[in-house]
């Protein structure tokens, strides 16, 4: 876009330092001053649009934080805080760094201020107290809970209250039904808006499924729906597959009636009062989180399938004189992409709630 911007980000690293918010702020001031001193004009801006907090165990959270920041910093200039507990750590300590754009004329534009907070196991409240002091006031707080999606057990209450949106991943749970039930419980008891990253990864699938029925004539095909088949999950059915089924059923006002559920097969008949629709969910033969979605009506079939390269999706409707099929790109399902997309997702949380509860209904024998 701007011609003087190099395509790559640059990362400025600083040293570990004592946990003193005033010192941390002063260190960032220095970074900003250094960055603008090489600029070609006297302009300066300290742009931050949100706080982004990542909470989790050290190894997993650190790696994923680094990966996400490379993408997130480009779209959402922010203050990012990685708060982890580590067994090797003594007293609470911190380090700061920043991502910036390097301009062709020698200047830098900071686009993220990053703070690492390392505490000891059991010192979560201590870490949380520093997070509270470091967030930029009046900006939204996005909190990503890396690992088991159990915010009520793993997050200090004050952090949960601080967050405007809490990101969890039902795919991160060891057992899918347990993870979904835990999130459903949190959804009921937490006022913080909750975003499931597994749900975000179904975005393209839901959009493509909806596109089949956008026109007036094709919308009527939904009234003749007889079967929904979904394949997703490695070894066991994935949360994405269950959420996809839950979303289709809840959007169409279908309630599960007769259900046979196991980790590797869900078969259900759902009713909307008059008609019955068969739902069948199986793991993906290729071990993909979502591999295929097929909707069958009396005289048509609509399918979305992942291409073998995972980078494309095939979309086919077999209804008119000739089948209509197309190939579209598929966004990567990396943390970097999904978290960034989730932050931008403004769709109604009720839709997720409905999909989640219907998915749980499909699991209840």
């Amino acid at each position: 876009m701007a011609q003087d911007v190099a395509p790559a980000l640059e990362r400025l690293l600083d040293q570990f330092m004592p946990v003193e918010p005033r010192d941390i702020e002063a260190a960032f001031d220095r970074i900003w001053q250094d960055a603008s001193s090489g600029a070609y004009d006297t302009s300066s801006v300290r742009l931050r649009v949100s706080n982004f907090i990542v909470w989790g165990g050290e190894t997993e959270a650190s790696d994923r934080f680094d990966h996400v920041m490379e993408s997130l910093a480009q779209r959402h200039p922010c203050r990012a805080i990685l708060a982890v507990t580590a067994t090797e750590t003594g007293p609470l300590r911190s380090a700061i760094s920043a991502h910036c754009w390097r301009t062709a004329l020698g200047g830098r534009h900071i686009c993220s201020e990053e703070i690492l907070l390392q505490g000891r196991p059991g010192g979560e409240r201590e870490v949380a107290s520093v997070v509270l002091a470091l967030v930029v006031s009046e900006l939204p707080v996005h909190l990503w809970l890396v690992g088991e999606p159990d915010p009520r057990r793993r997050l200090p209450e004050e952090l949960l209250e601080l967050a405007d949106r809490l990101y969890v991943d039902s795919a991160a749970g060891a057992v899918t039904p347990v993870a979904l039930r835990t999130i459903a419980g949190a959804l009921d008891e937490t006022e913080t808006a909750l975003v499931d990253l597994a749900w975000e990864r179904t975005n393209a699938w839901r959009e493509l499924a909806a596109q089949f029925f956008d026109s007036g004539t094709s919308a009527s095909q939904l009234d003749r729906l007889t079967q929904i088949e979904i394949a997703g999950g490695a070894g066991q059915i994935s949360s994405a597959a269950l959420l996809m089924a839950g979303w289709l059923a809840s959007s169409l006002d279908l309630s599960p009636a007769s259900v046979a559920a196991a980790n590797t097969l869900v078969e259900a008949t759902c009713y909307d009062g008059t008609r019955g629709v068969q739902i069948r969910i199986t793991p993906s033969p290729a071990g993909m989180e979502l591999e295929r979605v097929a909707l069958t009506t009396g005289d048509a079939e609509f399918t979305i399938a992942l291409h073998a390269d995972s980078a494309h999706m095939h979309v086919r409707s077999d209804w008119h004189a000739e089948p209509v099929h197309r190939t579209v790109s598929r966004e990567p399902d990396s943390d970097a992409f999904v978290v960034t997309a989730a932050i931008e997702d403004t769709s109604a949380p009720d839709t997720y709630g409905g999909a989640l509860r219907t998915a749980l209904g499909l699991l209840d024998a």
Partner: protein
Amino acid sequence: MTAETLANPLRTGMRVQRTPEACAVVVFGATGDLTARKLVPALYNLARLRMLPGGFSVVGFARRDWSDEQFRAVMKEAVAKFSRAPLQEEIWDSFARGLHYVSGTFDDAGAYFRLGQRLLAQDAAHGAGGNRLFYLATPPDSYATIAHHLGTAELARGTKTGGWVRLVVEKPYGRDLASARELDRDVGTVFRERQIYRIDHYLGKETVQNILVFRFGNGIFEPIWNRRYVDNVQVSVGETVGVEGRGGYYEQAGALRDMVQNHLLQVLSLVAMEPVASFTGDAVRDEKAKVFHAVTPIEDIGRDTVRAQYALGAILGESVPGYRDEEGVDPRSNIETFTAMKLQIENWRWADVPFYLRVGKRLPKRATEVAITFKTPPLQLFRQMGGGDTPTPNLLVLRIQPDEGISLRFGAKVPGTRSDVRPVNMDFRYGTSFGADPPEAYERLLLDAIIGDSTLFTRWDSVEAAWELLTPVLDAWGNGERPLEFYDAGSWGPDGARELVEQDGREWHRM
């Protein structure tokens, strides 16, 4: 979003999606530059991003005797060269299956019959529902002929299946008021106004759209966006390039027709318009039209307009020829490559605030900017305290290209025991704040046209009002009321441009 989309229960709760219904886009002038550089790459990217539905197709219409396969091969090369995202074979193969070609001249009735048959066959095969978007990527003198034949072939009205028909027209829409009205009459006998989408690619630019977001999505600017606080507004477009092999076209157009009548006046209308109750097609276009109607005719064209042509000079370290030495240009040409003017908008908000427009080729820098200079404080408190004699007014600059962003200049105290005041710039840049790759203007505008959202397209009343304002200028120039000046290539324009603002005690914002 269409009514049909809302009826889809799977759309409930989704963030607003802009996926159109299946349709056929028919491009007249399919072998031309615009199709290859902009239109097909834009459609390819929309397909790649899942924004085009199944059953979507493109039908190229042009004189060359090409087959579908030849058309696909040429377009593949074009996408590989001009698409903002690299060509992906899997997606191209899928997209290319929907590319078709009909050979014919624009005045060949039989070709339109063949086109109709082709479209019907595609509808039957893929369920496109009779939806058609006709895109005139042709010289303007073909518009009336094409519209006439589309009407005769019964392709200009919706089909029995309830499909819609729209017509996209490129600028320029007429050469002056009379020719624009004639064109409107010719096209209007076949297409209704609501079917006609007059495209101005400036309006598809993210930063142009951001003018409205900036004004109406924030609470702090609108209260000062008026004659009480604003001293003057400048809309400037600088180009470093010359006519780039388009001398023949430019000889018929000039800067006023090529840029002011459409791009600059459209930007001006977005800066000056009143808030809308809703961001829908006619609400926005109604307000823009009111601005055009409130612009007072230029009374003293000799004083308030400038016309000039670039002469030999240097740009970015390289010597460049004068306009009259360019290929395809008459050595005695009097066409302007630079124009500047002062406009007044006589309404409650803007009375007495001058709007200065300037556009030129072969200027030192490529930039499009809107600069809003605010009035100085009523009392110069810091002059007596060492703050300088001339306070620098606050300046808000909306940069449209190439370094898109917004900057605000204000005074700040220099640290020390004295009250020295220095201007500082608070500078927001899209490229460094939102690193995302924005869609091409044509992607946005094509998608809007297919969806049926006319907000960013120009309505006839605005086109007519723009010509009503500028045709007297063209006439007066023709009568020698404002002699042509010359400026060195690589300079900021002729002396007359500087005098235009200096006579009001102002100066041009430095781009």
